[in-house]
């Protein structure tokens, strides 16, 4: 049998260690190198962990992600030069999905931006965080301070029972609604908690000092609803939720319009422009993209994965599958792909080829599994 553990992203050279490393190992996690760190890929098995998160609550260690804080006079203007988001209208304790863009309108990273009393808190991807910091510093005036909060760990607790379990330890979190955040306290440990996540489930993300992470994770897992979940299930959960993964579904050659992330281009910013990449992006938006990111139901059970060919082409350029796998919730093969925009409507038939084998697929609306976010007034 060929080695199933080989992964081009694995690289043992200077692989870093995160605050919960020993805790994961003690709990029987299988560790792999990911985004430059040793990370748990699974505990009991991806399928079981996935379904546990969909029905109860999973604890994810995402401390590899970059946590940044920007502050100083003119920070709003500075952020609006880099991001297509309406930063000015973002109220304290509110968060927004946004994108770091290059001059040609390509996506350098996707991120969450939250306005706090002490500045703008940004969570960026682990594999891109140092490039992001360099890019941000290149585009910042001297008056703005960028703090890489690398002394902070980041945990996510996700699932239908996540908030009730967390609220027993941190009373008050239940009052947050989706895409809001606030400061909390656990036995004197300062916590920054948002009601957000990357699974499509209700839940929270918790930023806390690295030295407190193990005790907090241990305490959370004492709640019967909560089990630690590895990166494997994190990937299958986000795929079912239709959420793109940077470096796979998004990259510097892909624009927000092609990636179907138009919601990240706020109305005022579309009208005013003035952010990096605005001209090519707004022109593409007006003309319509050639390709578009869509969800696919693939016939049968066999996964089609990143790199599989989409045989439908425009001017000789084929589409491509950027994420794909077996959906544990739906028990069928699903994928994200870039297809010609004329075929991006649900119901369009798509032909895929992987390792010489053809697969029939059909465009479907995403998410594949409905989001369970708890919104204001719900």
């Amino acid at each position, binding site marked *: 049998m060929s080695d*199933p553990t080989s992964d081009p992203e694995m690289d043992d050279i200077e692989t870093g260690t995160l605050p919960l490393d020993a805790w994961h190992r003690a709990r029987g996690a299988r560790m792999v190198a990911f985004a430059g760190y040793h990370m748990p890929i699974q505990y009991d*098995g*991806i*399928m079981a962990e996935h379904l546990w998160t969909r029905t109860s609550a999973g604890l994810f260690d995402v401390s590899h992600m970059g946590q940044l804080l920007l502050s100083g006079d003119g920070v709003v203007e500075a952020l609006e030069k880099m991001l297509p988001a309406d930063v000015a209208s973002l109220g304290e304790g509110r968060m927004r999905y946004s994108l770091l863009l290059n001059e040609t309108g390509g996506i350098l990273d996707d991120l969450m931006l939250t306005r706090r009393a002490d500045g703008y808190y940004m969570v960026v991807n682990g594999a891109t965080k140092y490039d992001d910091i360099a890019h941000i510093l290149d585009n910042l005036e001297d008056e703005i301070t960028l703090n890489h909060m690398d002394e902070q760990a980041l945990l996510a607790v996700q699932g239908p029972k996540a908030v009730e379990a967390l609220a027993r330890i941190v009373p008050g979190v239940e009052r947050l609604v989706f895409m809001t955040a606030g400061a909390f306290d656990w036995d004197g440990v300062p916590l920054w908690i948002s009601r957000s996540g990357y699974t499509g489930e209700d839940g929270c993300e918790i930023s806390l000092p690295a030295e407190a992470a193990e005790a907090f994770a241990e305490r959370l897992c004492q709640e019967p609803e909560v089990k630690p979940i590895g990166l*494997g299930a994190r990937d*299958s959960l986000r795929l079912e939720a239709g959420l793109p993964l940077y470096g796979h579904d998004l990259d510097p050659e892909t624009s927000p319009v092609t990636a179907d992330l138009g919601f990240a281009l706020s109305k005022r910013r579309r009208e005013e422009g003035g952010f990096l990449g605005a001209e090519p992006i707004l022109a593409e938006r007006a003309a319509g993209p050639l390709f578009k990111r869509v969800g696919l139901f693939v016939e049968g059970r066999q996964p089609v*994965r990143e790199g599989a060919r989409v045989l439908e082409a425009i001017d000789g350029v084929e589409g491509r599958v950027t994420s794909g796998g077996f959906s544990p919730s739906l028990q069928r093969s699903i994928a994200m792909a870039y297809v010609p925009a004329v075929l991006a409507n649900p119901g369009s038939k798509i032909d895929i080829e992987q390792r010489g084998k053809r697969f029939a697929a059909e465009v479907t609306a995403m998410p594949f599994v409905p989001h369970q976010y708890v919104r204001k007034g719900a």
Partner: protein
Amino acid sequence: MAFYFTRDHEWISIDGAEDSTATVGITDYAQAQLGDVVFVEVPPAGTTVDKGKEAAVVESVKAASDVYAPVSGEVVEANAALEADPSLVNTAPETDGWFFKVKLSDAGQLDGLMDADSYKVYCEGL
């Protein structure tokens, strides 16, 4: 009944005389490495497989892996149960989760394969 094992984590069982058929599957060690198996493609009866060449595909949630034919010969039966329930590879890798049966073209190919004890030692060294 004799069991043989390969360094690529396939098993071969021979029932009766050495010119009879061999049943092929992947080992418990292999299924544990793969994780949850969601799809198996086995060669249909009548296919000729060559020792060391790709004969089957097994897909887990994580990754796709090729299964190499541990011996050469003609496939006489594929395990149809795997199509409906690929998780048999996880739950019963060395019994009900077998992949295919092959009529050996060269029983000499069994020479040099490991027995259960040698394979156990081999896995412990990985």
